[in-house]
């Protein structure tokens, strides 16, 4: 009778439910999938005179979009579960915390794959982004980014009492990473303290990974390191996020 730590059937049911919720909300899906494409398009023509700059920034952005969008969507979605009472109800039913979290990661991971296929496809084939390595590796990094975004979103939703607060976590959690990830200036040219800080922020590895694929033909040692760091970060944050799901509340 007791619940196993992770039930595949309940996890898949949860993922299917999250996707069904999104399907009933076509506008959100359209925003999720089209806005990153439009931003890439915009960027391509902002740097119309210097395609080299587009190559540098474009690849990094392919890694940043899924992280930001999945962070926002997950933090709002799980905040809603907390405030509407559905989370309390589910945890009073035979649903494991791991089922809940893995279900969300699976659902938004699926969505991230679609989003990344569109953005990567558009950037590489439509906008002439120059990628030396395989586009599949770009996709892998994008997927890991999405899961990382989901994990971070889940985690911060525990500290937000309202949707207003939840969206404010985006500048608090994402913007510093955006500034320090090497998108604006190479990380080794930053003030040493900031460089050290950027070494422990997961988005730095997302951008590094993307740049490795963009500049090198094969799978480099640095790329493997970047992927492993991101997997480790995502698992760590998901585990911490699980700790914020409480069956007993005051």
């Amino acid at each position: 009778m007791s619940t196993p730590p992770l039930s595949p059937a309940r996890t898949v049911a949860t993922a299917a439910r999250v996707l069904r919720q999104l399907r009933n909300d076509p506008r959100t899906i359209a925003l999720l999938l089209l806005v990153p494409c439009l931003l890439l398009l915009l960027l391509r023509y902002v740097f119309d005179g210097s395609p080299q700059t587009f190559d540098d920034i474009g690849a990094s952005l392919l890694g940043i979009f899924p992280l930001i969008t999945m962070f926002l969507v997950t933090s709002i979605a799980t905040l809603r579960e907390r405030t509407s009472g559905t989370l309390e109800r589910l945890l009073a039913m035979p649903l494991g915390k791991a089922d809940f979290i893995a279900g969300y990661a699976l659902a938004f991971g699926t969505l991230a794959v679609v989003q990344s296929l569109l953005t990567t496809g558009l950037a590489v084939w439509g906008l002439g982004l120059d990628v030396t390595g395989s586009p599949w590796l770009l996709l892998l990094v994008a997927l890991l980014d999405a899961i990382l975004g989901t994990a971070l979103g889940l985690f911060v939703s525990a500290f937000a009492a309202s949707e207003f607060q939840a969206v404010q976590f985006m500048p608090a959690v994402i913007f510093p990473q955006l500034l320090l990830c090497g998108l604006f200036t190479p990380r080794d040219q930053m003030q040493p303290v900031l460089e050290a800080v950027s070494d422990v922020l997961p988005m730095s590895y997302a951008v590094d990974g993307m740049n490795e694929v963009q500049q090198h033909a094969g799978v480099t040692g640095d790329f493997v390191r970047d992927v492993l760091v991101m997997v480790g970060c995502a698992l760590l944050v998901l585990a911490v996020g699980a700790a914020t799901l409480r069956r007993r509340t005051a």
Partner: protein
Amino acid sequence: MMNKEPGPAIRATGLTAVRGPRTVLRDLDFTVPAGRVTGLLGPSGCGKSTLMRAVMGTQAKVAGDLRVLGLPAGHPSLRARIGYVTQAPAVFADLTVRQNLEYFAAVLDPGRRAAARREENVTRAIRDVDLTSHADALAAHLSGGQRSRVSLAVALLGSPELLVLDEPTVGLDPVLRRDLWDLFHALAADRGAGLLISSHVMDEAERCHGLLLMREGEILAQDSPDDLRARTGADTVEAAFLTLIDQAAEAATAATRSHSQETSR
């Protein structure tokens, strides 16, 4: 239907709960029998919801002994055996009625092999709460009363041995209210389920087998409606409740008076 010894569905001894700086439940002793409908009545804010959350094991800072279906409250194996409806409808607004129930059914009874049984359960639960004609409407588009019925339908999925319902009939029209009470009685009689139903509407008390009257975190009386009226000489449960409150207040003032007399002496 029950082949086990029909012990009480809930037995509480010295149940105390603290919420923030406030003691919300003070040293309560009560039982909720199986196969009966027990009403939990009292004004809003008296601790009814906290008591129910304690029974479900979702309330933090609970002390005392609380046994639910023979197990300590919140025991993992109880999760599939209790149906719980919170006051605010805990359903997904962006899913249809049927999609909501399909998901909760999959959590209760997962796996592909159970699909046919789930389908049956979902259809029955929707029929029980009279929402068949709205099965494919988004919960967000339903009225408040309809949404709370979706929430109730979730609790009816599976075959819960205990139903804990926090004000399930608030804002419903009289016909539907009568139908739901008939359903509650049928669940108790046919399936032997225990039901704990809270309400602040006193006329619903008459429909219960037993009553727990609550006020300010304490249980004033624990009796059947008939015995309660007979004991207080009142015509209605509401009048009986008022009599009990007055008696309690008198006893309290008498106690303080004798106490102050003693100290002044």
